[in-house]
């Protein structure tokens, strides 16, 4: 042990910072990958039960090893690069999808103290990173030199740009209500129990944020970018093996991120829902904040799957209409409402 401490002190300071940061990153990314793997399993099981099937049940007890078997299979498959494809960009595109999805976790507060980088402009950072995810999809579609791929890329680019604006405006509402861009302080601004969380005063923004999040991750019912019935698999039609798996990981990591962010912005993050309630409040005070955060995130993660099992796919022009003509005007109006309520300290939420 002393030897290890001596070794650590011998490392130059700059390198120490680097190593320590890398360790923290691994501590976030490794569990994330595990959650992604079992999220795919949960998806297949839940949608299976919704459709009166059993879902995967062969590999391991009750199919628990299915995601591992899938991962191993994908790792050993050949990555086929299409002829006349832009090889470098073709292989680079999956990284551009998964990179921002994982980097956004850097500012995410898991509890009051547990956050990798507690920066003031956390909300802006989240917005900036989520706007970068679209590159991976456009580049994948273009670089694979395939008409289906390119059509999927164009569709998803237009869709993501449209819904990003609605998402951004919804977050402006959150920022006005909380009066800060720091994610931890946004959570603390909602303290006071279930009815003080932002979902109630910002109800339209809450719904719009989550629906736009579903559209932003190209999930059903907004999954025209990979619409199987028209363009087979859209932007990742030419991908196989691990390159395809990375797209998949990115998509699921993004879904988890959107769920966690919705819980953070509108459902009070790590806060106890019964805070300040007569009996339930003290009875649940021992539950750590991280558990509440996981439960809330789980609800939204389940909604993603429920949507996919329930809703038919939107028609493309209706997706665009919903984004531009419905969501954006509603968010603008509600930002005004929230601003007036905050400035004039309107009850019941902004009495101080």
């Amino acid at each position, binding site marked *: 042990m002393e030897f290890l401490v001596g070794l650590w002190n011998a490392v130059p300071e700059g390198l120490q910072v680097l190593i320590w940061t890398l360790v923290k990153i691994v501590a976030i990314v490794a569990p994330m990958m595990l959650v992604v793997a079992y999220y795919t399993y949960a998806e297949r099981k839940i949608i299976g039960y919704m459709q009166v099937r059993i879902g995967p049940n062969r590999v391991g007890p009750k199919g628990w090893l299915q995601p591992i078997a899938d991962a191993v299979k994908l790792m050993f498959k050949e990555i086929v690069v299409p002829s006349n494809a832009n090889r470098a960009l073709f292989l680079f595109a999956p990284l551009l999808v998964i990179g921002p999805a994982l980097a956004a976790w850097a500012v995410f507060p898991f509890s009051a103290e547990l956050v990798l980088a507690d920066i003031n402009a956390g909300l802006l950072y989240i917005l900036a990173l989520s706007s970068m995810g679209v590159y991976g999809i456009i580049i994948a579609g273009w670089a694979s030199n395939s008409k289906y791929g390119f059509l999927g*890329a164009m569709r998803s680019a237009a869709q993501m740009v449209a819904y990003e604006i609605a998402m951004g405006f919804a977050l402006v509402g959150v920022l006005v209500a909380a009066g800060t861009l720091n994610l931890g302080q946004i959570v603390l601004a909602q303290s006071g129990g279930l009815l003080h969380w932002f979902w109630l005063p910002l109800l339209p923004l809450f719904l719009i944020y989550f629906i736009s999040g579903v559209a932003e991750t190209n999930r059903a019912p907004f999954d025209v970018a990979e619409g199987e019935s028209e363009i087979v698999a859209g932007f990742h039609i030419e991908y196989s093996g691990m390159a395809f798996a990375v797209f998949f990981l990115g998509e699921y990591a993004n879904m988890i991120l959107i769920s966690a962010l919705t819980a953070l912005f509108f459902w009070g993050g790590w806060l106890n829902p019964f805070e300040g309630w007569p009996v339930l409040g003290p009875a649940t005070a021992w539950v750590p904040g991280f558990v509440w955060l996981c439960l809330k995130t789980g609800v939204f993660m389940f909604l993603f799957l429920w949507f996919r099992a329930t809703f038919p796919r939107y028609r493309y022009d209706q997706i665009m209409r919903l984004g531009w003509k419905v969501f954006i005007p509603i968010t603008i109006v509600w930002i005004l409402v929230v601003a007036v309520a905050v400035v004039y300290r309107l009850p019941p939420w902004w009495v101080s």
Partner: protein
Amino acid sequence: MSFEKVLFYLFAAVLVTASVMVVTRRNPVHAALFLVLAFFSSAVIWMLAEAEFLAITLVLVYVGAVMVLFLFVVMMLDVDVAALRAGFIRYLPVGVVVAVIMAAELVLVVGPRHFGLGQYAAPAAKAADYSNTETLGAALYTAYLYPFEIAGAILLVAIVAAIRLTLRRRPGTRYVDPSQQVHVKRADRVRLVKLAPEQKLEHK
């Protein structure tokens, strides 16, 4: 060398390389992607200068929105690269003149005579709870309220004008009103026809 300094030189090198690539790559999509990389590296350098709001806004606006649309257009255009390269020698003198003038202007403005640590003291590092965003917002909405609002109005007019100029109404398009679509009833679409088994068709 401190960690920040390493980061600065790393991203400065990436920025310069990416900018050179933007003008030298033959493939316009590659050039656009290198421009994205250049924006991103300069955002990191701004971040090192503690201008976090500007840095993140640069990524949000230029990388996240402007360049996506740019890439969108560049990918859809079928650019003939050979035709683009044809005028290289012919336009080279003009390009060199413009480049030299711009470089000279830059040296005049930010050269050692007017700029650098000799003229201005290095700004003191701000406390950890100092919010760049708040300071900028306060300045924009108090001291510079009129210029800010006028700029906003001009941009709004520009948006409306651009939409008006490109809007064309095509008479032949078929459009279904979404509310009509939502309010459709079963009776509007479904007609039940009763067919008795082995019904004899009468020919008239």
